């Protein structure tokens, strides 16, 4: 009899839904059906069950083809690449669990690497703004239970976070919001009329790249001053109308996305969004939230902050300190300056998502991809190490876009012999210790998976 696994977390977007139900075959090996997921989440689970999953690492040969090698050989190769490089970059982590992020911290410290995650090319500017201006925010349940005004600025959840509006922000009926959508005013600010904009009560089609001016106009009118007849392509009356709705909220919410961070202004757009939120808190209750892209891209920001004090762009090459300076220690800038001499791509696809010039620079040096699937990065790597799919074949803690930790389950076993990201990093760490003839140091609290059984005992 096939069985249903309930309360399953979805390893796709930052909404990190944990209410999926998965029908698993009798032998517990194959995923037959996925319930409650969006179209994308559905695909993640079905893809994991695909028969052409890789089961062993592949090493590129002199003739350019790939050949299977053992995990031991892959671990040895990775450890040696890390040790040989002066400034290796380990980048990615949008799609793995916190256990792996913790394990890689030890590897990066020991080998003197730069640690960076996908925020570096997504919400990195949001971090910069948060460093300067703070982050008045809340969990998504607060939006569900209290929010009566919801603003989506430069984000399109209907495409990027398909269940966001139904689970958290617009449609659900909550404790103080029994009427659901009818009780909420929705404002969309976007240069395109996206599906999200179509859903909104008000859509302000801001002139692309002029978000800062529009934020500034809102702050100006909310403080009782006049603005020009048109700002950032929006008529004054429309701004006044939207500002009036925002001001009259009991609990207002501003969600923002890549529309703010990927374009001119970057961190300054987010900075003024935070200032607007602070202003609004003098007249109503307001929160702001970054629409984080991946189901656990908030994770490295958390794990590395408690381990190193910084969420991203962490240069550990000094040995005695962690150093962060985005613009200097950020992956794209490091690549474009040709400053790194080895690259590990993990839980992301830099091959598809970095500007091609950055990829070309990184490919001059040893290039390793750790990913369950074939992706662009894996197809240009020297070494591709397949791993278990987190959330499908490996449990673990992930952080939702509101930094709420969700304990994801394992649904099926990984293909035979395939290990997890965490196990892989622990083995690389032990190999580095062997090669450097040093003692591994473990924090005893991680004893569950961490006993150094291969070394020392």
């Amino acid at each position, binding site marked *: 009899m096939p069985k249903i696994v309930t309360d399953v977390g979805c390893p796709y977007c930052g909404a990190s839904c944990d209410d999926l139900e998965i029908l698993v075959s009798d032998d517990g090996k194959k995923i037959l059906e996925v319930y409650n997921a969006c179209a994308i989440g559905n695909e993640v689970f079905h893809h994991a069950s695909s028969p052409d999953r890789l089961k062993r690492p592949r090493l590129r040969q002199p003739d350019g083809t790939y050949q299977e090698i053992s995990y031991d050989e892959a671990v040895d190769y990775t450890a040696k690449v890390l040790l040989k490089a002066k400034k290796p970059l380990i980048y990615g982590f949008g799609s793995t669990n916190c256990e792996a992020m913790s394990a890689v911290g030890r590897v990066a410290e020991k080998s003197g690497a730069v640690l960076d995650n996908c925020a570096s090319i997504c919400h990195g500017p949001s971090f910069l703004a948060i460093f300067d201006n703070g982050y008045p*925010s809340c969990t998504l349940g607060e939006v569900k239970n209290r929010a009566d005004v919801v603003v989506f600025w430069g984000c399109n959840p209907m495409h990027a976070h398909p269940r966001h509006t139904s689970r958290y922000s617009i449609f659900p009926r909550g404790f103080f919001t029994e009427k659901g959508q009818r009780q909420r005013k929705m404002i969309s600010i976007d240069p395109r009329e996206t599906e999200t904009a179509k859903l909104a009560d008000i859509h302000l089609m801001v002139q692309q790249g002029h978000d800062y001016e529009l934020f500034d106009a809102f702050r100006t009118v909310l403080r009782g001053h006049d603005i020009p007849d048109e700002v950032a392509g929006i008529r004054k009356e429309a701004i006044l109308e939207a500002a009036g709705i925002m001001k009259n909220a009991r609990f207002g919410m501003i969600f923002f996305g890549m529309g703010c961070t990927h374009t001119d202004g970057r961190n300054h757009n987010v900075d003024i969004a935070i200032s607007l939120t602070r202003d609004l808190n003098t007249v109503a209750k307001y929160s702001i939230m970054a629409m984080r892209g991946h189901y656990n891209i908030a994770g490295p920001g958390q794990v590395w902050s408690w381990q190193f004090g910084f969420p991203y762009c962490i240069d550990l090459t000094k040995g005695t300190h962690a150093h962060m300076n985005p613009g200097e220690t950020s992956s794209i800038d490091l690549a474009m300056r040709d400053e790194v001499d080895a690259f590990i791509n993990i839980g992301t696809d830099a091959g598809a998502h970095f500007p091609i010039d950055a990829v070309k620079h990184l490919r001059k040096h040893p290039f390793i991809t750790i990913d369950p699937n074939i992706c662009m990065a894996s197809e240009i790597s020297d070494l591709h190490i397949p791993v278990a799919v987190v959330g499908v074949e490996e449990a673990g803690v992930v952080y939702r876009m509101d930094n709420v930790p969700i304990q994801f389950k394992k649904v099926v076993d990984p293909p035979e012999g395939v290990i997890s990201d965490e196990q892989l990093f622990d083995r690389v760490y032990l190999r580095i210790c062997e090669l450097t003839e040093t003692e591994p140091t473990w924090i005893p609290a991680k004893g569950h998976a961490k006993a150094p059984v291969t070394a020392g005992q």
Partner: protein
Amino acid sequence: MAEILVKNGYVIDPAQKIDGDVADVAIRDDKIVESVSSGARVIDARGKVVMAGALDVHAHVAGPKVNVGRLFRPEDKLFKSPEAQPNYRVEMGFSVPSTFKTGYDYARMGYAFVMEAAMPPLHSPHVHEEIHDTPIIDQAALPVFANNWFVLEYLKKGEIENSAAYVAWLIRATKGYGIKLVNPGGTEAWGWGLNCLKLDDPVPFFDVTPAEIITGLMKTNEYLGLPHSIHIHQNSLGDPGNYTVTLDSLKLAKGMKAKNKFGRTQVMHSTHLQFHSYGGDSWANFESKAKDVMNYVNQQKNITIDLGCVTLDETTTMTADGPFEHHLNALNHLKWANTDVELETAAGVVPYIYDKDIKVCGIQWAIGLELGLFTKDCMRTFITTDHPNAGPFFRYPRVIKWLMSQKAREATLETFKHRDKVIDATEIHGIDRELTLYEIAQMTRAGPAKALGLAGMYGSLAPGMDANVAVFNLDYKKMPSNPEKIEQAFQRALWFIKSGEIVVKDGEITSHGNKRTLWVNAKVKENPQVVRDIHEKFIKDYTVNLDNYPVRDYLAPNPFVIDVDVEA
């Protein structure tokens, strides 16, 4: 079998009423024993002070708001982080240190146990993830309850039994230790941008008052017989004139009796009392009311307190008292982080500079120390800085110096720009009391161990106790005339043995030790209504499924579980 003999030190162990006797402390494996064999490793403590490992009853060291403090303050790392010890993890941060630095620095000061003072239940997996990345020290965490919708609804109707069943479930689910209250009712009001500043201010919609919440949770705690009492951060924190609210809430403990099998005698622990002992009605006439507050505490034996001493540092304030942080931000205009947590609580984080040249900061500094100097019972008065709110925890040795030396206090007072105004608004200048090592050991060892219901494990050097032994470079018979030497001695222990393992030698870390997570497993009779309520709220109001809410066992891999069986 590992044996250690700490030989010939001046032993200070208030739990056994030992004050400076020259004696040996014998350790076998992870326990203190009567004697050991001749093969034991000998540590020569001649001429040095020997104490049990210390306990911190209240510090914010793990969890979401602590991590917000780390994340949003890169400047807290810049030029403020020491170099890593070879073969140990990097140690980043000052007021909000990394988990590694937190574990190392506590160990260097001879601390064996630290209570994380406020765990938002929804974020409990995060708290435990950080705890398991914090080396050496044993830890526990207090989930927050005083703005939790279940609790507000039960207590509005006076349903203590239901409240107890829910509280027991939540403590189990979060692997928590006890009942924390932060700004009762006020933090829920903050969901609408409001607050409850007085004990009879009703919580919007829930229509229950802070006084009812405090009393109800006190009754719930004693109904369950938990090892610790309720642990309360009162309403109106940080406001001039708040001492009347403080006294009003302390009075709620009157007539209540502690009921438990752990040797705890208090029914209320009132935390970081410094922030709650303010007179005046504005920052202009702001003054100390430490004496009034301590007069009450001294006579009311079923209350314990901790100080929350201001250390005059640049630090990071963080509390589940969301409205307070918003208010503080309006005063200092620095960056402001806030996280409201669905159905449960909130948190705010704001950097803060306690500047010795600002009058109010000087008065706050004095108030914290006055509380410690006015106490008549050091077994009920504990040293904290409400880390990192009034100052970082690694300033405890400095606080101890100030408490032990009038000369040190006067020297600090002399550096204040508004020295005379501070003296006018406080009593610190006239106090000549200097606490003894015995009293310090009560305030950091025997006292907190008893208040936490842990006197059978920690805070003493009696045989059978956990082998947590610290040796400090102080000569009991010849205390240094320079108070700086006291601070230095407590900053870096000569030796610290934690759970029978030497983890510090000459102030440097030598091992990652044997860390444990303590949590309380309170078992009550199944309560169908509460079970139903929990299911319903998870279906209707939470955004996380019930099945994924309780902290999974592997996240606390070295648990020490305290079972509490509730007969009723």
